[in-house]
């Protein structure tokens, strides 16, 4: 196996090396990748979508369809892990499994987490909301939000956090997150546009078509953030407890 693997890897490496000479230099502004489609985004993003962060406009609008599925990948991963790992509630109660006694909760850790977590959350909301203008967006914000809960779960234990963030609501909320994205796109159909054509919202929102695109993006970013946050936490909860939803790590 080792030998086979080396042969495969080295063959691949050799082939890819062959191509290297043909590839443009690093950072070459005239490389084909940087002159065809991408310049259109740089030149037109502001006029067409009123979003100065090109990454966001490409992500959530020009290639919004990709991003929708990206959110669904996350959602799908969450459901998958849950379905694979989760055990039944009833069964768990019957089972008495010996576990190592947990050390007392660390006061410093808890206090620090309690201070840091809200700040993380505020910052995350900023990252979500300001994603059009500065680096940030739904994914980034969602991950920070999710990790604030993970931090709390680490400092206390999983069961404590699960009392606040019910497992059922985690799944439902993550579904709602993708549904928000999808819904914004679907409503465009009823407003006479194509799927994910946010400009169709202009009549409802009472703004210009270009502004509507910007608002639409904000909407979908919120959806993304909701899903990512809950699924990140759900992944942590499932994986750290092996699907038992007990004290976790």
């Amino acid at each position: 196996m080792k030998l086979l693997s080396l042969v495969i890897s080295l063959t691949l490496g050799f082939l890819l090396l062959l191509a290297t000479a043909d590839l443009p230099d690093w950072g070459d502004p005239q490389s084909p990748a940087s002159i065809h489609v991408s310049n259109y985004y740089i030149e037109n993003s502001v006029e067409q979508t009123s979003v100065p962060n090109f990454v966001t406009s490409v992500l959530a609008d020009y290639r919004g369809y990709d991003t929708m599925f990206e959110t669904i990948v996350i959602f799908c991963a969450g459901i998958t892990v849950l379905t694979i790992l989760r055990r039944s509630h009833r069964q768990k109660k019957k089972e008495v499994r010996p576990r190592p006694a947990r050390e007392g909760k660390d006061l410093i850790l808890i206090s620090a987490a309690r201070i840091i977590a809200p700040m993380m959350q505020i910052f995350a909301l900023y990252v979500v909301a300001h994603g059009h203008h500065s680096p940030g967006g739904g994914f980034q914000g969602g991950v920070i939000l999710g990790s604030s809960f993970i931090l709390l779960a680490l400092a206390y234990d999983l069961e404590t956090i699960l009392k606040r963030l019910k497992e059922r609501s985690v799944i439902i909320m993550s579904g709602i997150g993708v549904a928000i994205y999808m819904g914004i796109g679907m409503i465009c159909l009823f407003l006479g546009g194509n799927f994910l054509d946010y400009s169709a919202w202009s009549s409802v929102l009472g703004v210009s078509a270009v502004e509507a695109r910007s608002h639409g993006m904000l909407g979908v970013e919120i959806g993304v953030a909701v899903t990512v946050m809950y699924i990140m936490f759900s992944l942590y909860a499932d994986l750290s407890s092996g699907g038992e939803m007990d004290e976790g790590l």
Partner: protein
Amino acid sequence: MNEILTAIIAKYNYWSFLILLLIGLHAMISKNNLVKKVIGMSIFQSAIILFYVSIGYKKGATIPITEHGHGHANEVVHQTAAEMVAGFANPLPHVLMLTAIVVGVGTLGVALALVQKIHRVYGTIEEDEILEKIKE
């Protein structure tokens, strides 16, 4: 000799991505421990992400965000199209990689969940031991 060296340095991003890629691939195929395979997978994916992101870089360009105040879309600091194109990095690879990262996270999560399950079924995560248990 010097020319070759310059050529290599001019394209050093490909070299570094290639090395990571091969490490990852080799680990995925040859490692016996399932978690190591998963780690290999992550390295492999990261290598590809590195490759894409390096495509997006332009010498002398900055992050692809224009300066302007909120709600003043039309008051952007006016630049010619050529200046803008030269001044901002290519946003597309970043967008693509955001997706690839997310896919990576998803795959990683599922892989770890499966490893946990395998451990529960076979009591081990070493591939050869698992295969032996299957044979029994």
